[in-house]
């Protein structure tokens, strides 16, 4: 037992000694060259790769690239959405409420360095931001979504194309948009993977419009029960009217035309005034979470935290 204790003490002493030795300042010393030095005999990796590349006939690869480009639109995925069962507008508030303080980098030119920037508060937590709040709704382009594999929807889309409505664009959720675009000599778009979900497109044909007045800053997603006509699409340009909302009688918001130096200075004062707070843990812009706006408190809000204001009340829904 005694010998065991002694051994343990000896091991502990050795460990301590080793730790002290390793904790000491590192000694670096040039020990010179011992023996003969040979140049590496291995081939430079870059030369080897060049040699391998030179050995390949790349015309096949170029052909494969060309084929995939020519068949690109044919191979795009089709999204088969159900036909709309009623003509109605669903409103969506595209604004976000910032869920954390957002900081951007800032350099104090007297003491700081661009390599070690500090943080300045850019947007305060709780701020409601709507990217289209100040945009005239009439100036934004519209998008008509349809299923090109459904003959009735295709013929409705063709009818709209013949009407030549300015600012109206077409998107086929299914069908070869490349071939269609070539035949019709106009772009026919295809949805990106997350777009339908983000824009809450659940049926087709659908028009994406934008509201005015009380619906300023909101997206109007209007679905059409077939058969429908050009006039109905035009009526849905700012979302279908409902009691208290007659978009044709409402003016567009005026675009911000700040051009004078004084106005620019005022803007600068406004923008820079909050930028005096101490650095805080940084939140990146994408951490801002979408949330319903304060101005939509009077409209029914979904309970699951989505920022869609899927609201049309009874008057907003136009059944046909």
């Amino acid at each position, binding site marked *: 037992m005694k010998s065991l204790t002694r051994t343990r003490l000896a091991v502990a002493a050795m460990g301590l000694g080793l730790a002290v030795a390793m904790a000491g300042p590192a000694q670096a010393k040039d020990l010179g060259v011992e023996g003969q030095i040979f140049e590496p005999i291995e081939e430079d990796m870059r030369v080897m790769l060049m040699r391998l590349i030179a*050995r390949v006939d790349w015309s096949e690869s170029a052909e494969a690239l060309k084929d995939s480009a020519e068949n690109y639109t044919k191979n795009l995925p089709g999204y088969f959405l159900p036909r709309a069962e009623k003509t109605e507008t669903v409103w969506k508030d595209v604004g976000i409420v910032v869920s954390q303080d957002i900081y951007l980098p800032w350099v104090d030119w007297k003491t700081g360095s661009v390599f070690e920037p500090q943080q300045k508060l850019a947007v305060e937590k709780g701020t409601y*931001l709507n990217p289209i709040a100040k945009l005239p709704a009439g100036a934004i382009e519209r998008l008509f979504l349809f299923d090109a594999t459904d003959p009735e929807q295709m013929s409705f889309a063709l009818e709209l194309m013949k009407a030549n409505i300015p600012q109206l664009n077409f998107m086929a959720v299914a069908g070869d948009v490349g071939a269609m675009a070539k035949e019709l000599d106009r772009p026919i778009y295809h949805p990106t993977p997350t777009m339908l979900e983000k824009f809450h497109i659940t049926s087709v044909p659908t028009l994406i419009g934008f509201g005015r007045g009380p619906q300023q800053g909101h997206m109007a997603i209007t679905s059409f029960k077939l058969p429908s006509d050009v006039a109905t699409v035009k009526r849905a340009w700012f979302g279908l009217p409902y009691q208290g909302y007659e978009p044709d009688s409402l003016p567009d918001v005026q675009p911000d035309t700040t051009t004078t130096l004084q106005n620019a200075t005022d803007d600068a004062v406004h923008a820079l005034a909050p930028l005096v707070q101490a650095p805080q843990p940084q939140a990146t812009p994408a951490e801002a979470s979408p949330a319903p706006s304060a101005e939509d408190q009077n409209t029914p809000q979904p309970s699951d935290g989505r920022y869609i204001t899927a609201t049309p009340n009874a008057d907003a829904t136009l059944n046909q």
Partner: protein
Amino acid sequence: MRILKTFRNLLGIALVALTATMATPASASTVGCVGKMWNPLADLDFRLMGGIKAMGFTILKTPSLGEPPNHQAQNICFCKNGMQTGFGLGLTFWMPSYINDLARQPGCLGFLDGVNVLPGFMSLSSGQEYSNHTQRVDGVTNMQVHWAYADVTAIAGKSLFEKCNAVTGSMEIAYMTEPDFIFQNDVYSVVMTPQASILAEVPLLSQMTCGMESIANTLGGWQDWGVCAWKGTRLPYSGNAIAKDSAQVSNMDVTIKYLSRAALLGTTMRTMGKDTTCKPLYSAFYDPFQHRYQWAFPGKVSTRYNQDVLKWGMFIKDAGQGSMLSLTSQTAQLSNVSSVQVGSSTSGTTAPSGSNLGLAAQIVANLPKPLNFPSHEAGYMQVWEARECCLMVLTVSNAIQMIVENLATMGGGMIQELYTMYNYANQVYQIVQDPIGAALNYIGDGILSGIKTVADKTGLTSALGSVANGIKESVGSMAG
């Protein structure tokens, strides 16, 4: 007469030749769509392969573009991958993985010698300002991006990279932006990513942030604050860029916007950082330092994220107005002017006056200007990607193999027993890892065994045997 006859014959030959030329099937080449045939041997700048490290030790020197500090693998790594689970050595390297083709004319593929594959989209206007205005006049340029997988190393040097699972062998167009309405339209793009409005809320701060970031990176730093591109903001993620300096810079801006959106959509993965040693990971945020951008047409220049074009581009010499002496004296006049201050101040510096702003504009006008390069029409680049790999040294599979080989001398019965035990253990492992796959494999095995029994009894062993194997493989692939 003889001369006339000869002349007539020559004319006839010329006409036949002309007719033959015109009768050749029309190539899809369109006016204004120019380019050069992609050629990896001539296009690639192999210096950009540099920066290979194994366990932190340099194997191939880093090129002048530098090595991002985040490009580090774990020195000793452990990766889970079924029977290939095991330990290995961390390796970092660069691969020429993609072709990024930027076109002013929709549908025009510069890297395929200027062929237009989407003629129906021709009406999409680029609006590229350089054609109509002098430089430094603000305007919006819309460029189309054609992103292609061009896994050159997979084809040429498979054995070099296959141990890293870094080869796909793909040679295809991955994305063309023409049919993508969101990419064409800023408003819809900002609706998709509403965080862009944060920048609109504080435009001055955003501009200054991006200016500082550009200075830091041009001086050799590695700053990415997530909101900038070369000369504009990164958001919204559309194909529109403010055309301020040159086509060269606008094209880089559009590239960054495209890749940032691709990261958000999950089509561009994060390939740097110790946690990506085993495989690339999804990240909503694009790390622009994971790519080296190497223009291949119309010229060969390389850059990394947000280095000023003065550092990597080409220049045209001004007619004497860029005198450094006068620039120095002009700049000195602005020494007491604050770029951030508004109104009066007690700090000794003053807010910029109208004449200060005029002088600043004059200084900028006198700086040497970058050449509009690549051309207005089209250009393409090779995109080199930072990769990491766990070079497997000891896996479950080869450990078992070693044990079995060692036991081979110990007698057939024992090996058979061990092999059966191993199969049981492997089955249990598979069930735990992937219950659905295991169930489908079990069904597949059952069908296989049933068909083989029938085959043996009917004498159709060979034909039915291959059918059975096909069914088993199909059922297996459903699982996985």
